[in-house]
């Protein structure tokens, strides 16, 4: 923790000064998020209610989970473009596996998690051992998974998603003290967030991911098991994508185009959350709020009455603005 040496007169000024220093170091994503969310709340009073907030969080949780996983890959200096396709696979594949029978929910979920594990392992292997740039490796994987999934279900959803399967993304815990209705999705996010925070910020894993993304050679020479850490990162990202897929399917039901464009949206969420695409920097809470911010922006635009097409355009502008802001301000620091 840096101690700021202040040589000003008076205890109050120095207290204010240190508060201001602390404020200056807050990552931009938080003020941005709160500004947007408050604007949303002003436009639509339901967002000011606890219920409204819970609804928002239910909707944003999947993207947040995706963002956490992707953030780790980005921090290690790579890209994972296959997460959108994984979501597609999870939703479509589950519609087939469930066969409209709730009893199949548990096995279906297990199968999906298993597939996620395999996908992550392959991604990690191709990048670490075949030395293929992750952009290409996961691009290829995206095609294989999406094509494979569509082939598997024959191009159209094969059934509906059973209620118990959909519970994760759609349902609430009722009558929770303070919160009222508490989305299951949010609970899942919290569990994953705590787990991720631990491994990324409080265990060797995160430090090694960051050092790999920063200087892979120095990491290697310092004994970091680079291939192993990389593979783990891709596995975590893929499995999180599976979990997010279950939640997305739960919330929105099944349709063929689900998951398209998700990878790019997720990367944008990470960038808004302060991740540098080169690697070496990343944070779990920031990624989560990056995702919340993206969702809040979409909601804000909808509330402003902008028709969907404009939403895309404005999203694009905002992504660019966010990155430009971060980029220009880091340049100034140098």
């Amino acid at each position, binding site marked *: 923790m840096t101690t700021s040496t202040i040589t000003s007169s008076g205890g109050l000024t120095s207290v204010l000064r240190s508060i201001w220093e602390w404020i200056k170091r807050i990552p931009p994503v938080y003020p941005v998020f709160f500004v947007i969310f408050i604007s949303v709340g002003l436009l639509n009073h339901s967002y000011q209610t606890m219920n409204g907030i819970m609804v928002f969080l239910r909707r944003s949780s999947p993207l947040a989970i995706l963002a956490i996983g992707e953030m780790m890959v980005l921090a290690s200096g790579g890209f994972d473009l296959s997460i959108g396709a994984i979501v597609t696979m999870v939703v479509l594949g589950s519609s087939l596996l469930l066969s409209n029978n709730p009893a199949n929910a548990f096995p279906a979920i297990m199968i999906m998690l298993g597939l996620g594990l395999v996908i992550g392992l392959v991604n990690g292997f191709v990048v670490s051992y075949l030395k*293929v740039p992750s952009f*290409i490796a996961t691009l*290829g994987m995206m095609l294989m998974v999406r094509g494979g999934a569509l082939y598997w279900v024959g191009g159209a959803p094969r059934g509906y998603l059973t209620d118990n399967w959909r519970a994760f993304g759609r349902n609430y815990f009722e009558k929770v003290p303070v919160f009222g209705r508490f989305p299951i999705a949010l609970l899942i996010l919290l569990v994953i967030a705590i787990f991720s925070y631990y491994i990324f910020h409080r265990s060797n894993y995160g430090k090694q991911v960051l050092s790999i993304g920063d200087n892979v050679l120095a990491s290697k020479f310092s004994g970091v098991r680079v291939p192993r850490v990389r593979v783990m990162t891709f596995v975590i990202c893929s499995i999180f994508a599976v979990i997010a897929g279950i939640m997305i399917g739960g919330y929105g039901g099944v349709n063929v185009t689900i998951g398209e464009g998700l990878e790019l949206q997720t990367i944008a969420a990470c960038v808004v959350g302060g991740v540098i*695409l080169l690697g070496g920097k990343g944070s779990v809470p920031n990624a989560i709020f990056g995702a919340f911010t993206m969702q809040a922006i979409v909601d804000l635009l909808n509330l402003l009455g902008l028709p969907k097409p404009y939403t895309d*355009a404005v999203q694009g502008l905002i992504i660019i603005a966010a990155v430009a802001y971060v980029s220009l301000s880091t340049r100034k620091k140098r």
Partner: protein
Amino acid sequence: MTTITVSENRFKQFLRTIHIPPVFLFLVFIFLLGGILDQIFSDGQIFKNPPILLNIVVRSVPLGIVAVGQTLVIIGASIDLSVAYTISITAVMASFVMQGNSANVPKAILVVFAIGAVIGLVNGLTITKLHVNSFIATLGVGLIIKGIINATFSNYTGSVPDSFQYFGYGAFGIIPVAILILLMVVIAGWLLLSRSKFGFHLYGVGGNVEVARLSGLRTDGVLIIAHVLCSLTAVLTGLFLVSRLQSGAPWVGPDGIYDLESVATTVVGGTALAGGKGGVWGTLAGVLIFGVLDTTFNQLGVNPYLKTVLRGAIIVLAVASYTFRSKKDAA
């Protein structure tokens, strides 16, 4: 001190002396494989049939044209993920302006090329002046274009006069116009890269932008031009598509996933994502590889989704064959 290390074996060095990038060997291999499969499963209907072979190339034209533009940008160590939407907006606007009337064709062409130039300019400026990563910048611009298209048009709009369809369907003798155009674009790209000052500078900017800057180059300008050229190739592809479809619709670009596919064929063709090396002939080979695969699979009645799967696998395997011997760590 950084030293530039060589990590190739003798075979690769030999290949370099005779200047055949590995991708051409792949192309030959795929072609032969396709021929064999075709012979076995459908009695050689495709590969013994010249018009169908020609058709393979024709169907590769739209991707091929925009892939040349993408190659330029990638050599400059950048990327353009907005091409799909540029193609869409071109198709829609061209069709809209033409309204089925031949007299409007020149105006339409002017309009779409102007739009393309602006898009390229915006891409280039965002990357160089706002210092936004090219992935994000072109992605964002693409989304903006998408928004504009969807806000203005929602379905097929306008139509293309018959005369313009010559572009997509016409032929000089037996050679389709489409192939000629593709060849012209590839040759133009090749000449630009290997013979022009701009090309030399582009390789430098992509290889090491600091060195380029120290050597007095206007690195921003070079990159902006590359992006403009890329967008213009996307416009050309859009025009080609709309001439074949007779009318433009907003989903034309993304449907063909021209953005990721143009990147994939470039990389399969031997151009490195990191920039500084590569070329358009390799990209053309990459495009043809995908074309042959697609046609072979169609002929064999293979499920289109499996085609996608194979595409993905080939991309990874092709690049892996270039990289697996490298000692350097990928990312």
